[in-house]
C-alpha cells in the first residue's frame, strides 16, 4: 500500500547518484525488496516508471530481487531462512525447526537500491 512513497524514494536515490556520476542516462536499476515489506513488485515497478518520466531514469530496466525472510528462533536457536507461508495479506512466519512463532526477524524487511547501470561520456573521448 505504500508503494508510492517507496517508489518516490527509489527514483530520487537513483537519479541523485546518476547525476553525481555524470550519467546521461540510466539503463538499469536493481532493487532488493525484503519479502516481509509486503511491497507488491508489479505495483512498485509501475510507480517507478510513472515517476521516472522526463528524468534520467525514464525507460530504464527495473530489476527487483526478492530477499527471503531470515530468522533467529528464540525457542530453539535455529538461524536461517524461515518458512514463509506467505500470501499477500497473511504473512505467518514460523521457525522451520520447531514451528514456534517467537522469533527475531534478521532479514526480509529491506528496500535497498542496490545499483544502477548508467551511460556516460567516455572520459578518453
Amino acid at each position, binding site marked *: *500500500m*505504500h508503494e*508510492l*512513497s*517507496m517508489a518516490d*524514494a*527509489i527514483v530520487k*536515490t*537513483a537519479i541523485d*547518484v*546518476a547525476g553525481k*556520476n555524470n*550519467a*546521461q542516462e540510466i*539503463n538499469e536499476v536493481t532493487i532488493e525488496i*525484503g519479502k*516481509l*515489506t*509486503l511491497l507488491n513488485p508489479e505495483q512498485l515497478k509501475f510507480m517507478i516508471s510513472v515517476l521516472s518520466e522526463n528524468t534520467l531514469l525514464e525507460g530504464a530496466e527495473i530489476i527487483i530481487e526478492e530477499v527471503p525472510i531470515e530468522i533467529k528462533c528464540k525457542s530453539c536457536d535455529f538461524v536461517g531462512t524461515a518458512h514463509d507461508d506467505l500470501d499477500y*495479506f*497473511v*504473512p*505467518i*512466519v514460523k521457525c522451520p525447526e520447531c514451528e514456534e*512463532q*517467537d522469533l527475531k*526477524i534478521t532479514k526480509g*524487511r*529491506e*528496500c*535497498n*537500491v*542496490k*545499483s*544502477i*547501470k*548508467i*551511460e*556516460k*561520456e*567516455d572520459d*578518453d*573521448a
Partner: protein
Amino acid sequence: MHKIAEVEIQHDIMLANKKLAKRNQRIFDRAGVFAVDVLGAIGSGKTSLIENLIDKMNYRIGVIAGDVISRFDAGRFENHCVPVVGLNTGKECHLDAHLVEHALHDLPMEDIELLFIENVGNLICPVDFDLGSHIRMVVISVSEGDDTVLKHPLIFKDADIVVINKVDIAEAVGADENKMVDDVLKLNPGVVVIKSSLKTGKGLDEIINNIQKFMDEM
C-alpha cells in the same frame, strides 16, 4: 563515445527512515519527552483511548494526530486543552519519521512530558516505519473479528502494549476476545496485552499503569 558503468549504491530506504527515527528519539530524550506511537485499525478506539489518557494521566501531555486528510482527531484533542499538531499524510497510509520530525518543530517540547503520536488507522503499512517513539501501543477491537491478529501478525510482533478494545460487545459481534489475547502472546510472548472497554472504563487503569511502568524504566 559513450560508455556503460555500473554504480554500486546500497541505499536502504527502510534504513534511512530508521536513522531519522533515531534522530527523533534523541530529540525526545534531550527534551525529557516520553513518546508513544499509537497504532491500530480504523475505528478501533485509538483517539478515544488517547482522550481518556489525557484526562486521567497526571502529566503534561502533547499529541501528534496523524490522519489522511481530515483534522477531526486533532480537533477532538484540542478540546482537552493540550498542545496538538495535526499531520495529514495525503494519500500515504502511514506516518514516517520525517513527517514526525516536522511536527516536532510545531510542538512546545519543553512543556511536554508525554507525547502520543496517533498513527494513521492501518495494521499493515505503519509496521516498517519507526517514528522514534519509546514504545509502540497497538489498539484493536473485537468488532474487527477475532482473526485480526493472525491476519496482521507483524504489527503485533513489534508491539510493547496491545489493547483489545470494545470487549463489552464481543458476544454481540461473535468474537472471542481470549483467542485474540492468545494469538498476540503466541506471536510476541513478552508483550503486555490488555482487554478494555473505553465505554465502561474496563482496562483503562491497567493501560495507564503499564505506560507508567515503561516511563519509569526509562
